[in-house]
Protein backbone atom coordinates (compact mmCIF):
# COMPACT_ATOMS: atom_id res chain seq x y z
CA UNK A 1 0.00 0.00 0.00
CA UNK A 2 1.04 3.54 -0.54
CA UNK A 3 1.10 4.59 3.09
CA UNK A 4 1.41 2.56 6.22
CA UNK A 5 0.06 3.44 9.61
CA UNK A 6 2.82 3.97 12.16
CA UNK A 7 2.69 2.14 15.47
CA UNK A 8 2.13 5.35 17.39
CA UNK A 9 -0.79 6.32 15.18
CA UNK A 10 -2.21 2.85 15.47
CA UNK A 11 -1.96 2.79 19.25
CA UNK A 12 -3.46 6.29 19.40
CA UNK A 13 -6.36 5.20 17.19
CA UNK A 14 -6.96 2.07 19.23
CA UNK A 15 -6.91 4.21 22.38
CA UNK A 16 -9.68 6.41 20.94
CA UNK A 17 -7.47 9.40 20.17
CA UNK A 18 -8.83 11.54 17.28
CA UNK A 19 -5.30 12.16 15.95
CA UNK A 20 -5.10 8.42 15.35
CA UNK A 21 -8.53 8.55 13.70
CA UNK A 22 -7.36 11.00 11.05
CA UNK A 23 -4.26 8.89 10.41
CA UNK A 24 -6.40 5.78 10.00
CA UNK A 25 -8.72 7.65 7.68
CA UNK A 26 -5.99 9.07 5.48
CA UNK A 27 -4.22 5.71 5.29
CA UNK A 28 -7.05 3.24 4.81
CA UNK A 29 -9.80 5.29 3.15
CA UNK A 30 -8.17 5.23 -0.33
CA UNK A 31 -8.25 1.44 -0.27
CA UNK A 32 -11.87 1.43 0.89
CA UNK A 33 -12.73 3.94 -1.82
CA UNK A 34 -10.98 1.77 -4.41
CA UNK A 35 -12.83 -1.28 -3.13
CA UNK A 36 -16.20 0.44 -3.64
CA UNK A 37 -15.13 1.80 -7.02
CA UNK A 38 -14.03 -1.63 -8.18
CA UNK A 39 -17.40 -3.02 -7.12
CA UNK A 40 -19.16 -0.44 -9.28
CA UNK A 41 -20.97 1.44 -6.51
CA UNK A 42 -22.82 4.58 -7.60
CA UNK A 43 -21.43 6.83 -4.88
CA UNK A 44 -18.24 5.25 -3.54
CA UNK A 45 -17.21 8.35 -1.58
CA UNK A 46 -20.45 8.36 0.41
CA UNK A 47 -20.16 4.67 1.25
CA UNK A 48 -16.53 5.15 2.25
CA UNK A 49 -17.49 7.89 4.65
CA UNK A 50 -20.35 5.79 6.01
CA UNK A 51 -17.84 3.07 6.77
CA UNK A 52 -15.52 5.39 8.65
CA UNK A 53 -18.33 7.06 10.58
CA UNK A 54 -19.22 3.54 11.69
CA UNK A 55 -15.70 2.33 12.29
CA UNK A 56 -13.87 5.15 14.02
CA UNK A 57 -15.84 5.21 17.30
CA UNK A 58 -15.43 1.42 17.59
CA UNK A 59 -11.69 1.20 17.19
CA UNK A 60 -11.00 0.82 20.90
CA UNK A 61 -11.86 -2.85 21.15
CA UNK A 62 -9.86 -3.99 18.14
CA UNK A 63 -7.06 -6.52 18.52
CA UNK A 64 -4.51 -7.77 16.05
CA UNK A 65 -2.63 -4.59 15.21
CA UNK A 66 -2.46 -3.43 11.61
CA UNK A 67 -3.89 -6.64 10.24
CA UNK A 68 -6.78 -6.67 12.69
CA UNK A 69 -7.56 -3.03 11.92
CA UNK A 70 -7.67 -3.59 8.16
CA UNK A 71 -9.72 -6.75 8.57
CA UNK A 72 -12.19 -4.91 10.79
CA UNK A 73 -12.52 -1.94 8.45
CA UNK A 74 -12.98 -4.08 5.34
CA UNK A 75 -15.45 -6.38 7.06
CA UNK A 76 -17.53 -3.27 7.78
CA UNK A 77 -17.05 -2.16 4.17
CA UNK A 78 -18.11 -5.59 2.93
CA UNK A 79 -21.24 -5.45 5.10
CA UNK A 80 -21.98 -1.97 3.80
CA UNK A 81 -21.64 -3.21 0.24
CA UNK A 82 -24.08 -6.06 0.93
CA UNK A 83 -26.51 -3.52 2.41
CA UNK A 84 -26.04 -1.32 -0.63
CA UNK A 85 -26.76 -4.21 -3.00
CA UNK A 86 -29.94 -5.12 -1.13
CA UNK A 87 -31.06 -1.52 -1.01
CA UNK A 88 -30.38 -0.94 -4.68
CA UNK A 89 -32.22 -4.14 -5.59
CA UNK A 90 -35.35 -2.70 -3.97
CA UNK A 91 -34.84 0.83 -5.30
CA UNK A 92 -35.96 1.84 -8.79
CA UNK A 93 -33.40 1.01 -11.42
CA UNK A 94 -31.34 3.96 -12.51
CA UNK A 95 -30.12 3.91 -16.06
CA UNK A 96 -26.61 5.19 -16.37
CA UNK A 97 -25.77 7.86 -18.88
CA UNK A 98 -23.69 6.25 -21.56
CA UNK A 99 -21.53 8.81 -23.35
CA UNK A 100 -20.98 6.41 -26.25
CA UNK A 101 -24.69 6.65 -27.03
CA UNK A 102 -24.42 10.42 -27.13
CA UNK A 103 -24.03 11.83 -30.61
CA UNK A 104 -22.03 14.74 -29.24
CA UNK A 105 -19.41 12.29 -27.99
CA UNK A 106 -15.80 13.30 -28.00
CA UNK A 107 -12.82 11.65 -26.38
CA UNK A 108 -12.63 12.38 -22.69
CA UNK A 109 -9.31 13.61 -21.42
CA UNK A 110 -9.80 11.64 -18.21
CA UNK A 111 -10.49 8.47 -20.16
CA UNK A 112 -7.38 9.04 -22.21
CA UNK A 113 -5.28 9.40 -19.08
CA UNK A 114 -6.98 6.78 -16.93
CA UNK A 115 -8.25 4.54 -19.67
CA UNK A 116 -7.01 1.41 -17.98
CA UNK A 117 -9.02 2.12 -14.84
CA UNK A 118 -12.35 2.30 -16.60
CA UNK A 119 -11.38 -0.79 -18.55
CA UNK A 120 -10.55 -2.89 -15.52
CA UNK A 121 -13.83 -1.94 -13.78
CA UNK A 122 -15.81 -3.03 -16.80
CA UNK A 123 -13.81 -6.24 -17.00
CA UNK A 124 -14.29 -6.99 -13.31
CA UNK A 125 -18.04 -6.56 -13.63
CA UNK A 126 -18.09 -9.58 -15.94
CA UNK A 127 -16.64 -11.86 -13.29
CA UNK A 128 -18.55 -14.09 -10.91
CA UNK A 129 -19.59 -12.09 -7.83
CA UNK A 130 -17.60 -14.12 -5.32
CA UNK A 131 -14.53 -14.30 -7.54
CA UNK A 132 -14.69 -10.58 -8.07
CA UNK A 133 -15.05 -9.97 -4.33
CA UNK A 134 -12.03 -12.17 -3.55
CA UNK A 135 -9.83 -10.53 -6.18
CA UNK A 136 -10.78 -7.02 -5.10
CA UNK A 137 -10.23 -7.77 -1.43
CA UNK A 138 -6.91 -9.44 -2.19
CA UNK A 139 -5.54 -6.84 -4.61
CA UNK A 140 -7.31 -3.53 -3.98
CA UNK A 141 -7.77 -3.91 -0.23
CA UNK A 142 -4.40 -5.68 0.06
CA UNK A 143 -5.65 -8.37 2.44
CA UNK A 144 -4.25 -11.84 2.97
CA UNK A 145 -6.11 -15.02 2.14
CA UNK A 146 -6.92 -15.56 5.83
CA UNK A 147 -8.29 -12.04 6.23
CA UNK A 148 -10.47 -12.40 3.14
CA UNK A 149 -11.67 -15.77 4.44
CA UNK A 150 -12.69 -14.15 7.74
CA UNK A 151 -14.51 -11.30 6.01
CA UNK A 152 -16.38 -13.53 3.57
CA UNK A 153 -17.02 -16.19 6.20
CA UNK A 154 -15.30 -18.92 4.17
CA UNK A 155 -12.31 -21.20 4.59
CA UNK A 156 -8.90 -20.10 3.28
CA UNK A 157 -8.97 -23.04 0.88
CA UNK A 158 -12.22 -21.84 -0.62
CA UNK A 159 -10.78 -18.35 -0.96
CA UNK A 160 -7.70 -19.68 -2.74
CA UNK A 161 -9.90 -21.65 -5.07
CA UNK A 162 -12.07 -18.61 -5.82
CA UNK A 163 -8.97 -16.51 -6.35
CA UNK A 164 -7.47 -18.97 -8.80
CA UNK A 165 -10.70 -19.31 -10.77
CA UNK A 166 -11.16 -15.56 -10.76
CA UNK A 167 -7.66 -14.99 -12.08
CA UNK A 168 -8.18 -17.53 -14.86
CA UNK A 169 -11.48 -15.95 -15.84
CA UNK A 170 -9.92 -12.51 -15.72
CA UNK A 171 -7.11 -13.66 -17.96
CA UNK A 172 -9.63 -14.90 -20.51
CA UNK A 173 -11.51 -11.64 -20.37
CA UNK A 174 -8.34 -9.62 -20.77
CA UNK A 175 -7.33 -11.65 -23.79
CA UNK A 176 -10.78 -11.33 -25.32
CA UNK A 177 -10.82 -7.60 -24.94
CA UNK A 178 -7.22 -7.32 -26.11
CA UNK A 179 -6.50 -5.42 -22.97
CA UNK A 180 -3.60 -3.02 -23.31
CA UNK A 181 -2.38 -0.99 -20.36
CA UNK A 182 -1.82 2.67 -20.96
Amino acid at each position, binding site marked *: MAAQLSDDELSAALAGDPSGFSAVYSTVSPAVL*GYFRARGVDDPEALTQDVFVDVLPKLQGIKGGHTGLRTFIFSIAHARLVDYRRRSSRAPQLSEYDPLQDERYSNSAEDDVLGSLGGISATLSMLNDEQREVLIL*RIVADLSVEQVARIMNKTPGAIKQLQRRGLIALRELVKEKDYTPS
Partner: protein
Amino acid sequence: MSATPTGPENREIQALLRDAGLDGDADLAAALGGMRALALDTPPAPRADLAALLAPGVSSLDARRNRQRRMGAVIGAVVVGTMGLGAGAVAASSEDFRRSVGHTVEKIFTPAPQAPVTGTDTASTSPSNVPAMTAVPAVPSGGTAPATPAPDSPTAVPTAPSTSADPVRRAPAPGGKPDKAPAAPAVRPSPLPSVPAVGKAPELPVKPSAPPSVLPTLPGSAPDQGRDKS
Protein backbone atom coordinates in the same frame (compact mmCIF):
# COMPACT_ATOMS: atom_id res chain seq x y z
CA MET B 1 -1.19 8.12 -9.95
CA SER B 2 0.20 5.44 -12.17
CA ALA B 3 -1.67 2.49 -13.58
CA THR B 4 1.38 0.28 -13.71
CA PRO B 5 2.42 -0.70 -10.22
CA THR B 6 6.05 -0.77 -9.36
CA GLY B 7 8.04 -1.87 -6.39
CA PRO B 8 6.46 -3.94 -3.63
CA GLU B 9 2.98 -3.83 -5.19
CA ASN B 10 4.31 -5.43 -8.34
CA ARG B 11 6.05 -8.11 -6.29
CA GLU B 12 2.82 -8.89 -4.45
CA ILE B 13 0.97 -9.23 -7.73
CA GLN B 14 3.68 -11.54 -9.07
CA ALA B 15 3.45 -13.63 -5.90
CA LEU B 16 -0.30 -13.81 -6.30
CA LEU B 17 0.03 -14.97 -9.87
CA ARG B 18 2.65 -17.50 -8.84
CA ASP B 19 0.30 -18.94 -6.20
CA ALA B 20 -2.35 -19.38 -8.84
CA GLY B 21 0.13 -20.85 -11.30
CA LEU B 22 -0.38 -17.97 -13.73
CA ASP B 23 2.95 -16.19 -13.46
CA GLY B 24 4.46 -14.88 -16.60
CA ASP B 25 1.19 -13.55 -18.00
CA ALA B 26 2.01 -9.92 -18.65
CA ASP B 27 -1.52 -8.93 -19.66
CA LEU B 28 -3.01 -10.35 -16.51
CA ALA B 29 -0.30 -8.70 -14.39
CA ALA B 30 -1.08 -5.37 -16.05
CA ALA B 31 -4.81 -5.85 -15.38
CA LEU B 32 -4.13 -6.58 -11.72
CA GLY B 33 -1.87 -3.53 -11.62
CA GLY B 34 -4.79 -1.49 -12.90
CA MET B 35 -6.92 -2.93 -10.11
CA ARG B 36 -4.31 -2.05 -7.54
CA ALA B 37 -4.23 1.52 -8.90
CA LEU B 38 -7.84 1.93 -7.82
CA ALA B 39 -6.63 2.00 -4.22
CA LEU B 40 -3.99 4.65 -4.80
CA ASP B 41 -6.38 7.57 -4.88
CA THR B 42 -6.30 10.34 -2.32
CA PRO B 43 -8.73 10.03 0.60
CA PRO B 44 -12.08 11.69 -0.10
CA ALA B 45 -12.77 14.97 1.67
CA PRO B 46 -14.70 14.07 4.82
CA ARG B 47 -18.29 15.26 5.02
CA ALA B 48 -19.64 17.07 8.07
CA ASP B 49 -20.28 14.20 10.48
CA LEU B 50 -17.02 12.48 9.61
CA ALA B 51 -15.12 15.76 9.90
CA ALA B 52 -16.63 16.24 13.36
CA LEU B 53 -15.42 12.77 14.25
CA LEU B 54 -11.93 13.51 12.95
CA ALA B 55 -11.76 16.84 14.76
CA PRO B 56 -9.45 16.86 17.79
CA GLY B 57 -11.21 16.27 21.07
CA VAL B 58 -14.08 14.28 19.64
CA SER B 59 -13.85 10.54 19.98
CA SER B 60 -17.54 9.80 19.52
CA LEU B 61 -20.45 11.78 18.18
CA ASP B 62 -22.74 10.12 20.73
CA ALA B 63 -20.58 11.40 23.56
CA ARG B 64 -20.85 14.92 22.20
CA ARG B 65 -24.63 14.59 21.81
CA ASN B 66 -24.93 13.27 25.37
CA ARG B 67 -22.85 16.16 26.61
CA GLN B 68 -25.24 18.57 24.89
CA ARG B 69 -28.18 16.82 26.52
CA ARG B 70 -26.51 17.04 29.91
CA MET B 71 -25.83 20.72 29.32
CA GLY B 72 -29.53 21.31 28.66
CA ALA B 73 -30.47 19.57 31.90
CA VAL B 74 -27.88 21.55 33.85
CA ILE B 75 -29.07 24.84 32.37
CA GLY B 76 -32.66 23.97 33.24
CA ALA B 77 -31.73 23.13 36.81
CA VAL B 78 -29.77 26.37 37.14
CA VAL B 79 -32.69 28.42 35.81
CA VAL B 80 -35.14 26.78 38.22
CA GLY B 81 -32.78 27.24 41.14
CA THR B 82 -32.16 30.88 40.29
CA MET B 83 -35.89 31.56 40.06
CA GLY B 84 -36.38 29.96 43.45
CA LEU B 85 -33.61 32.03 44.95
CA GLY B 86 -35.05 35.19 43.43
CA ALA B 87 -38.49 34.48 44.82
CA GLY B 88 -36.95 33.77 48.23
CA ALA B 89 -34.99 37.00 48.15
CA VAL B 90 -38.08 39.05 47.31
CA ALA B 91 -40.01 37.33 50.07
CA ALA B 92 -37.24 38.01 52.55
CA SER B 93 -36.84 41.67 51.59
CA SER B 94 -40.45 42.92 51.51
CA GLU B 95 -42.97 42.23 54.23
CA ASP B 96 -45.89 43.18 52.01
CA PHE B 97 -44.95 40.42 49.63
CA ARG B 98 -44.92 37.91 52.45
CA ARG B 99 -48.26 39.13 53.70
CA SER B 100 -49.86 39.05 50.29
CA VAL B 101 -48.45 35.61 49.62
CA GLY B 102 -49.71 34.42 53.01
CA HIS B 103 -53.09 35.93 52.24
CA THR B 104 -53.32 34.27 48.89
CA VAL B 105 -52.19 30.98 50.37
CA GLU B 106 -54.89 31.31 53.02
CA LYS B 107 -57.43 32.15 50.37
CA ILE B 108 -56.39 29.17 48.38
CA PHE B 109 -56.40 26.74 51.26
CA THR B 110 -59.31 27.87 53.39
CA PRO B 111 -62.05 27.37 50.82
CA ALA B 112 -60.47 24.15 49.81
CA PRO B 113 -61.77 22.20 52.87
CA GLN B 114 -65.17 23.93 52.61
CA ALA B 115 -65.68 23.13 49.04
CA PRO B 116 -65.56 19.36 49.54
CA VAL B 117 -67.66 19.65 52.69
CA THR B 118 -70.40 21.53 50.91
CA GLY B 119 -70.12 19.09 48.12
CA THR B 120 -70.59 16.14 50.45
CA ASP B 121 -73.37 17.94 52.24
CA THR B 122 -75.28 18.49 49.11
CA ALA B 123 -74.61 14.93 48.15
CA SER B 124 -75.72 13.52 51.48
CA THR B 125 -78.59 15.86 52.15
CA SER B 126 -79.88 15.72 48.67
CA PRO B 127 -82.18 12.79 49.40
CA SER B 128 -83.77 14.64 52.26
CA ASN B 129 -83.84 17.96 50.49
CA VAL B 130 -85.08 16.71 47.23
CA PRO B 131 -88.37 15.40 48.57
CA ALA B 132 -88.89 18.67 50.35
CA MET B 133 -88.06 20.55 47.20
CA THR B 134 -90.23 18.31 45.11
CA ALA B 135 -93.03 18.58 47.58
CA VAL B 136 -92.90 22.33 47.61
CA PRO B 137 -92.77 22.82 43.85
CA ALA B 138 -95.42 20.19 43.43
CA VAL B 139 -97.83 22.47 45.13
CA PRO B 140 -97.21 25.52 42.99
CA SER B 141 -96.98 23.40 39.86
CA GLY B 142 -100.63 22.77 40.10
CA GLY B 143 -101.31 26.23 38.81
CA THR B 144 -99.95 29.69 38.85
CA ALA B 145 -102.79 31.00 40.88
CA PRO B 146 -102.77 28.28 43.53
CA ALA B 147 -99.07 28.94 44.11
CA THR B 148 -99.94 31.12 47.07
CA PRO B 149 -102.84 29.07 48.29
CA ALA B 150 -100.71 25.95 48.02
CA PRO B 151 -99.69 26.14 51.66
CA ASP B 152 -103.28 26.83 52.48
CA SER B 153 -104.64 24.14 50.28
CA PRO B 154 -103.49 21.28 52.51
CA THR B 155 -105.49 22.83 55.26
CA ALA B 156 -108.39 23.73 53.06
CA VAL B 157 -108.56 20.57 51.07
CA PRO B 158 -108.58 18.17 54.00
CA THR B 159 -111.59 19.94 55.32
CA ALA B 160 -113.41 19.62 52.08
CA PRO B 161 -112.86 15.91 51.52
CA SER B 162 -112.90 15.32 55.28
CA THR B 163 -109.70 13.30 55.10
CA SER B 164 -106.78 14.61 57.13
CA ALA B 165 -104.55 11.61 56.55
CA ASP B 166 -102.31 12.81 53.70
CA PRO B 167 -102.05 16.48 53.28
CA VAL B 168 -99.06 16.14 51.00
CA ARG B 169 -100.81 13.74 48.72
CA ARG B 170 -103.85 15.87 48.83
CA ALA B 171 -101.92 18.89 47.75
CA PRO B 172 -101.18 17.81 44.20
CA ALA B 173 -104.61 16.41 43.78
CA PRO B 174 -106.45 19.73 44.10
CA GLY B 175 -103.67 21.29 42.03
CA GLY B 176 -105.43 19.70 39.14
CA LYS B 177 -102.29 18.14 37.71
CA PRO B 178 -103.45 15.29 35.54
CA ASP B 179 -100.35 13.13 36.16
CA LYS B 180 -100.50 13.12 39.92
CA ALA B 181 -104.22 13.17 40.24
CA PRO B 182 -104.80 9.60 39.02
CA ALA B 183 -102.19 8.24 41.41
CA ALA B 184 -103.89 9.66 44.46
CA PRO B 185 -107.48 8.87 43.53
CA ALA B 186 -106.55 5.35 42.50
CA VAL B 187 -105.91 4.61 46.12
CA ARG B 188 -108.86 6.42 47.52
CA PRO B 189 -111.84 6.86 45.38
CA SER B 190 -114.02 8.44 48.02
CA PRO B 191 -112.42 11.92 48.26
CA LEU B 192 -112.10 12.12 44.53
CA PRO B 193 -115.61 13.22 43.83
CA SER B 194 -114.69 16.40 45.58
CA VAL B 195 -111.60 16.79 43.39
CA PRO B 196 -113.43 16.99 40.08
CA ALA B 197 -115.42 19.75 41.50
CA VAL B 198 -112.22 21.76 41.95
CA GLY B 199 -109.98 20.33 39.22
CA LYS B 200 -110.45 19.55 35.62
CA ALA B 201 -110.35 15.78 35.62
CA PRO B 202 -113.83 14.47 36.09
CA GLU B 203 -113.26 11.29 34.16
CA LEU B 204 -110.52 9.89 36.36
CA PRO B 205 -112.59 9.89 39.53
CA VAL B 206 -115.50 8.47 37.67
CA LYS B 207 -113.65 5.39 36.60
CA PRO B 208 -112.63 4.30 40.07
CA SER B 209 -115.96 5.29 41.52
CA ALA B 210 -117.98 3.47 38.90
CA PRO B 211 -116.67 -0.06 39.49
CA PRO B 212 -117.29 0.00 43.21
CA SER B 213 -120.75 1.30 42.55
CA VAL B 214 -121.38 -1.39 39.96
CA LEU B 215 -119.81 -4.18 41.93
CA PRO B 216 -121.85 -3.73 45.06
CA THR B 217 -124.97 -3.11 43.17
CA LEU B 218 -124.65 -6.29 41.15
CA PRO B 219 -124.39 -8.66 44.08
CA GLY B 220 -126.90 -6.52 45.95
CA SER B 221 -129.36 -6.30 43.16
CA ALA B 222 -128.83 -9.76 41.77
CA PRO B 223 -129.87 -11.61 44.85
CA ASP B 224 -132.68 -9.18 45.36
CA GLN B 225 -133.80 -9.61 41.80
CA GLY B 226 -133.29 -13.34 42.05
CA ARG B 227 -135.21 -13.41 45.24
CA ASP B 228 -137.87 -11.23 43.75
CA LYS B 229 -138.02 -13.39 40.71
CA SER B 230 -137.94 -16.57 42.69
